[in-house]
């Protein structure tokens, strides 16, 4: 029992420690594809370190929500990390507290507070970005629900640890059309939720075109650091859910030994690195969509998920 608690803590520490690194690698790879040298992969760590040592400026007209939000954004991915398989393929100490639906709700809570905080200060760009994020969010919501229904229907459970075993026992299940199409739909969902390129340009600096970034414009110092770190962790958590629950449940620790859990750390990083390569290819080969074309992108994701659901329902 004690070792399970320790593993859970290790899991949280891994997400805390490596989330900025993943962001850094992604940025570096994107620049490399554009034949630039790009920033160091450690740049996000330096940014966060720098921001923690700067003074924080908070608008006089903002309410407690503005001050409270960075902590919510920072803490929600950690809570999700307690529930999902990051390193082990068996439930850890806190995993009984919630299933995949709970993970989705907790992540949505962070997004909700970020939206409120963006509106709170009265900065004109904040509410604009917040409302756009909500637009993308409510278009992504049906996709998330259908994916969730399909996955839990096909696997017969909403617990991520049972779902991930279903896809590979027997191995033929891996080629289930509902599995492959769900992966496709969820990949599109990740792109939309984390504001990657066909939906939003994460490296853009033009406020009028921003969707996701403009919510954090008002933050400075410690608040900005927490928001950045929280965003990076959210991205890593989504990648872990995608890879460990949906795509490739291989490489997770199967036994209760310490070396197995520690070996799982480089393996999950390698898996995320491969996913990053895919994301970089997507981001470099597509142009950012116009705002009203996002409905079409997410409509395509919705169609994919519904096809996954239909094929899953009828070919059991």
């Amino acid at each position, binding site marked *: 029992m004690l070792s399970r608690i320790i593993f859970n803590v290790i899991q949280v520490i891994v997400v805390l420690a490596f989330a900025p690194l993943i962001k850094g690698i992604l940025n570096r790879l994107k620049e490399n594809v554009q034949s630039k040298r790009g920033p160091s992969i450690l740049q996000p760590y330096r940014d966060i370190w720098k921001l923690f040592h700067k003074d924080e400026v908070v608008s006089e007209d903002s309410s407690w929500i503005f001050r409270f939000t960075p902590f919510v954004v920072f803490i929600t991915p950690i809570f999700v990390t307690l529930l999902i398989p990051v390193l082990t393929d068996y439930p850890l100490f806190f995993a009984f507290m919630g299933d995949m639906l709970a993970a989705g709700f907790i992540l949505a809570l962070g997004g909700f507070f970020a939206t409120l905080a963006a509106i709170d200060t009265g900065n004109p760009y904040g509410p604009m970005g917040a409302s756009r994020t909500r637009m993308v969010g409510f278009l992504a919501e049906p996709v998330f629900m259908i994916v969730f229904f399909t996955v839990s229907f096909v696997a017969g459970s909403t617990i991520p640890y049972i779902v991930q075993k279903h896809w590979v026992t027997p191995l033929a299940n891996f*080629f289930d059309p509902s599995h*492959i199409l769900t992966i496709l739909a969820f990949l599109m969902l990740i792109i939309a939720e984390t504001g990657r390129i066909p939906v939003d340009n994460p490296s853009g600096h033009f406020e009028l075109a921003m969707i996701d970034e403009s919510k954090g414009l008002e933050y400075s110092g410690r608040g900005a650091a927490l928001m950045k770190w929280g965003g990076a962790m959210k991205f890593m958590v989504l990648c872990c859910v995608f890879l460990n629950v949906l795509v490739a449940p291989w490489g997770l620790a199967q036994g209760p030994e310490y070396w197995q859990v520690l070996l799982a750390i480089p393996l999950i990083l390698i898996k995320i690195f491969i996913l990053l390569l895919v994301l970089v290819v997507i981001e470099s080969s597509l142009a950012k969509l116009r705002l009203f074309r996002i*409905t079409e992108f997410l409509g395509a994701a919705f169609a994919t998920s519904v096809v996954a659901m239909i094929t899953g329902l009828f*070919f059991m």
Partner: protein
Amino acid sequence: MSDPNLLLSFLTKLNALTGGVFLLVAFGLVAIRQMLTCLRLYVFQSLLLAISALILGYFYGSIHLFIVAGLTIIAKVLLIPWLLRHTVGYESYAKREISQAINIPASLLIALAITVFAYYIAVPMLAAAGAGRFAWVNLPIGLACLILGAFAVTVRREAVPQLLGILAMENGAFLAGVAIAPNLPLFAELAAAFDVLIIALVMGLLTMKIHRTLGKTAVGELIALKED
């Protein structure tokens, strides 16, 4: 792989996966804006049809289905794209925005409703006929693709995507056909393959004529008769 049951379950899943992607490509043919992408999607769909025919041919041990797969690859993957590229001018394919009678999210939703409808029709038939496990995949998806092709013809306003809609209908009919009647006479298959080629040729030439006369291929705008 020596266990026949394992092999069977793999083949079933692979066939189902082919069917699922086939259906997804049919959605693409309804809703993708770029004309060249539509043509590529059609080629991909034909390739999936050939794969499904190969899987079924291996399972049933039927030489007919291998010939069907070969004909599909020759006629639809190689000849039809070549024909369409050469008859319809390049500037039609360079177009990136195809106008549509119904906007794209709405037509996607209608396409989803059509798919559910196809299952609604097909499942009682399959249950009544006591169909095999391949027909459970191929018949509903083929039927859905048939209606989706018809829908694409209705909703598109450009000549080439409409033509691709007709060809997709034919693909859907074949996908259903290979599972229901794996021992269809070879003659019928040959005839169907040539039929499709002729359709593509005639409609390609017609499109070229429209393009020469009007300078565009937006047949949705041809609403009034005109006397010379």
